[in-house]
């Protein structure tokens, strides 16, 4: 078969073996973090009591803390972390730019605009059983993705990464200006709430919002699954990829759509939590190399563990007051990323 990628530094020794090892290793890490995280919190709970079915749920404070407060947080952290990390990997390959993040192409700004419009003006709007802020942010994110997609694609032609980047960056600034304008028109409490939304929050309160985001997440992951081999070649260059038989236009579209869907779902669930989509992919590449067949699954698992860990810090370090999780990811991720940058050069 075809070699994995021209840039893979390590000798090709059974990709299946390495993939299995990575899935087992990173899977064990993610599982361990997800199992341990709900056991720790601002208060001590008794697990025996939490799982004691003889106590009615309404009387069982430990079970309430475990199943209402902690489990949804950990699960949403895992879903959002995995989603943002993989979306980051795909975005970096698509744009062939190591600084690309899931938010580079305006998806998060669109989501923020949707959320902020509802927070400011939609005090009485409701959409079925779903609460309006996630729905509006999802709509905003998809709208932004649709605009960039429409601008950057021509029938039967490959996407220009320059056009993609410029369209995305411009849309980001444009939406940010609209956000500032809406904030300016809003009153103080609303402005405060929108700023808080922008910091990200995983305390979703129940399983419904997570379940609601799953169809999009799973669809995006299914698209990710067919991408790695083409992404390996695409990250070398569009010309190289097409001479090796990659349908470049199709791969680009799939990459764009999947990462946009994933990002939209993650942001509407928990707000735009920064740094996960850039720190995790680079960390993972440092550990497993650049082959997307390994980087993608490893990033998903490591991203889940990373964000659940960050949220654990966020909810315990200053308890009973919380630190916004986006602040924690930035505080941990920023210096680490700089260290990585200096070390490599």
């Amino acid at each position, binding site marked *: 078969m075809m070699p994995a990628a021209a840039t893979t530094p390590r000798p090709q020794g059974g990709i299946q073996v390495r993939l299995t090892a990575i899935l087992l290793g990173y899977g064990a890490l993610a599982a361990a973090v997800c199992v341990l995280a709900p056991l720790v919190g601002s208060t001590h709970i008794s697990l025996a009591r939490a799982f004691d079915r003889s106590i009615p749920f309404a009387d069982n404070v430990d079970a309430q803390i475990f199943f209402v407060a902690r489990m949804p947080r950990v699960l949403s952290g895992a879903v959002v972390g995995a989603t943002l990390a993989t979306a980051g990997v795909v975005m970096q390959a698509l744009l062939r730019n190591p600084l690309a993040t899931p938010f580079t192409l305006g998806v998060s700004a669109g989501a923020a605009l949707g959320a902020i419009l509802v927070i400011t003006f939609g005090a009485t709007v409701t959409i079925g059983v779903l609460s309006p802020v996630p729905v509006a942010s999802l709509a905003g994110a998809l709208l932004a993705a649709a605009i960039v997609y429409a601008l950057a694609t021509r029938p039967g032609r490959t996407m220009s990464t320059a056009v993609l980047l410029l369209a995305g960056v411009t849309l980001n600034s444009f939406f940010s200006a609209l956000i500032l304008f809406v904030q300016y028109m809003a*009153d103080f409490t609303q402005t405060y709430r929108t700023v808080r939304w922008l910091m990200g929050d995983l305390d979703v309160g129940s399983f419904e919002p997570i379940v609601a985001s799953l169809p999009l997440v799973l669809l995006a992951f299914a698209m990710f699954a067919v991408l790695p081999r083409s992404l390996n070649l695409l990250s070398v260059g569009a010309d190289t990829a097409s001479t090796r038989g990659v349908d470049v236009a199709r791969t680009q579209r799939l990459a764009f759509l999947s990462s946009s869907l994933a990002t939209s779902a993650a942001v509407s669930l928990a707000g735009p939590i920064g740094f996960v989509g850039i720190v995790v992919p680079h960390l993972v590449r440092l550990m497993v190399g650049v082959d997307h067949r390994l980087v993608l699954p490893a990033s998903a698992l490591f991203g889940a563990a990373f964000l659940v860990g960050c949220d654990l810090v966020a909810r315990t370090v200053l308890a009973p007051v919380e630190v916004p999780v986006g602040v924690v990811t930035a505080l941990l991720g920023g210096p680490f990323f700089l260290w990585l940058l200096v070390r490599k050069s």
Partner: protein
Amino acid sequence: MAARQKKLIAAVCAVVVLSGADLIRLARANPTAFAPQVQDNGARRIISLVPNVTEILFAIGAGPQVVGVSSYDDFPPETKALPRVGALLDPDTERIFALRPDLVIVYGSQTELEGQFARAGIRVYAYRHAGIGNVLQTMRDVARLAGRTADGDRAVGDLQAQLDTIRARVRGRPRPRTMLVIGRDMGALRGVYVSGGVGFLHELLDIAGGDDLFADIKRESVQPSNETMIVRAPDVIVELKPGNQPATATLQRERAVWNLLASVPAVRNNRVHLLYGDYLLAAGPRLGRAADTLARALHPDAFLVAEPKGPGR
């Protein structure tokens, strides 16, 4: 060509000389000399950038002296007819000057604005947001500045009497541990903000006979996680929301959001109250009414006994 150029240069020189003279005159001018003089009997033209101070001005009968209000003012209804001059972030200095005020009420944080008006010789009162004691002091201060000291003392006395009545009414009753919610996302238990252990809302809750669940956190507002709310287990949850009460269906749906915290006593004993009204969140003369509403939610029994009949409620 050359002649035209000379003419042009001469014209430019003339303009420069003229404007130079103007500049000197401008620099010598003392703006305070042009400012309206504050008479000893109080300010006649007042502009308020702070809605709850506007409310105080109207409550002490200084409404006719108010010539401009902030863009957020909507109470009392008379304010709607007045010119709007911006607010905390966007004060329209030009409009304010154009209205020739002799007293401008600004937020304590608007120090630059304060300096601007001081240079122009316009008296400034800087409002600082704090507890109920501060509201009462603000009432006295602006009353004095508006030349209505007696009216101010009366308004302060009235408000204090209202608050004392409510405090007396709930005295001796068990004080429920109350979570006073001042913000939450629609239809979800997310983005919950509650009153912490400082500020007028915290004090209002104390007067209305409730113990603040987050009194130990010395901040005006706190964002507790679901875990913290479950662990602290409030006896009563009161949500204060601006605006009018919505349709019953919306109200029921919003109250049902709390059912998620099934073990919390407030939820189990059906003591979750959603109270609507701008007056509940305004640190001004309507605090008495807000305390009354809050006390009725916390201690309905205390208000069951027939009140003395008469006009009023």
